[in-house]
């Protein structure tokens, strides 16, 4: 069953990725990207990453691809790209060769890293197959640090939830990185607004009609 799920998802993911790079119409490429993202979300589910699967669908398929489609529609660049012209001589064969090289190298690394991992639970590498889970079965926090998570109610019927584990790590060990991502998003939003807003004077098209704004108003 899991193998069937993996096979179907892999086919969807690879088909979607191919669709992104061969679609001549940007809207079709964006929709192929959605297929790929959904396939990867299901693969996250099979890897016991339920939280990431949900975030993948919400953030990627829900926000990022919609942003892509919005820009495509806004700019009216939804016309077919001419794939015949090749401004850089020999770029495509070179790119294909490079892609094959990347693929072969990455596959070699994958086989080396997951050697024996192709079969199933029994991993035939030197290291132990599964490190003994260091998580408490109820709170989902490492046993060594359990005292700090005493407030979690352990009487519920559910075992560890993935969200609880991820949240514990995000808000303890990675809390500094978490705060920095908040700062990053704020900077990104402000930068996007400044970059994309219609500047009155230096737009080129209406330069003659509109007098130059005060320098303080720009930026």
């Amino acid at each position, binding site marked *: 069953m899991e193998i069937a799920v993996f096979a179907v998802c892999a086919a969807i993911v690879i088909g979607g*990725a191919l669709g*992104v790079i061969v679609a001549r119409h940007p809207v079709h490429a964006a929709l192929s990207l959605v297929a790929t993202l959904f396939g990867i979300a299901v693969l996250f589910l099979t890897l016991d990453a339920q939280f990431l699967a949900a975030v993948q669908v919400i953030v990627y398929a829900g926000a990022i691809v919609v942003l892509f489609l919005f820009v495509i529609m806004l*700019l009216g*660049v939804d016309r077919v790209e001419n794939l015949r012209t090749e401004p850089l001589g020999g770029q495509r064969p070179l790119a294909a060769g*490079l892609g094959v090289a990347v693929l072969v190298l990455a596959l070699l690394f994958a086989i080396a890293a997951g050697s024996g991992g192709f079969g199933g639970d029994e*991993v035939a590498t030197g290291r132990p197959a599964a490190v003994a889970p260091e998580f408490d079965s109820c709170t989902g926090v490492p046993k060594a640090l359990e005292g700090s998570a005493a407030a979690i109610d352990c009487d519920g019927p559910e075992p560890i939830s993935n969200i609880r584990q991820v949240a514990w790590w995000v808000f303890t060990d990675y809390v500094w990185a978490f705060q920095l991502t908040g700062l990053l*998003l704020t900077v990104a939003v402000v*930068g*996007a607004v400044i970059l994309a807003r219609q500047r009155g004077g230096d737009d080129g098209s209406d330069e003659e009609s509109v007098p130059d704004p005060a320098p303080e108003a720009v930026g």
Partner: protein
Amino acid sequence: MVGTGWYLALAAVVFALGAVGLLVRRNPLIMFMCVELMLNAVNLTFVAFGRDLTDLGGQVSVFFVLVVAAAEVVVGLAIVVAIMRRQSGATADDISVLRG
């Protein structure tokens, strides 16, 4: 249970497809989509290794990669909008001069 190697192999294929697309296509929007493909391939390896090593750090890393990808797309698309406004239908070859 599907072995970790299969996930890594799938991620390798997706990464290679994204890299080829980034090099071949000239529409800036599609180049961004190819970058997203490559990021997703790496995310898949993070989660696969995280399961293999029973370490939740892989999933936390993917969480941060998602945030960075979102920020990257927002800024990148704003730049594309700003360029397209000056020069409609610009491709990556027309943006060879880093000048306003």
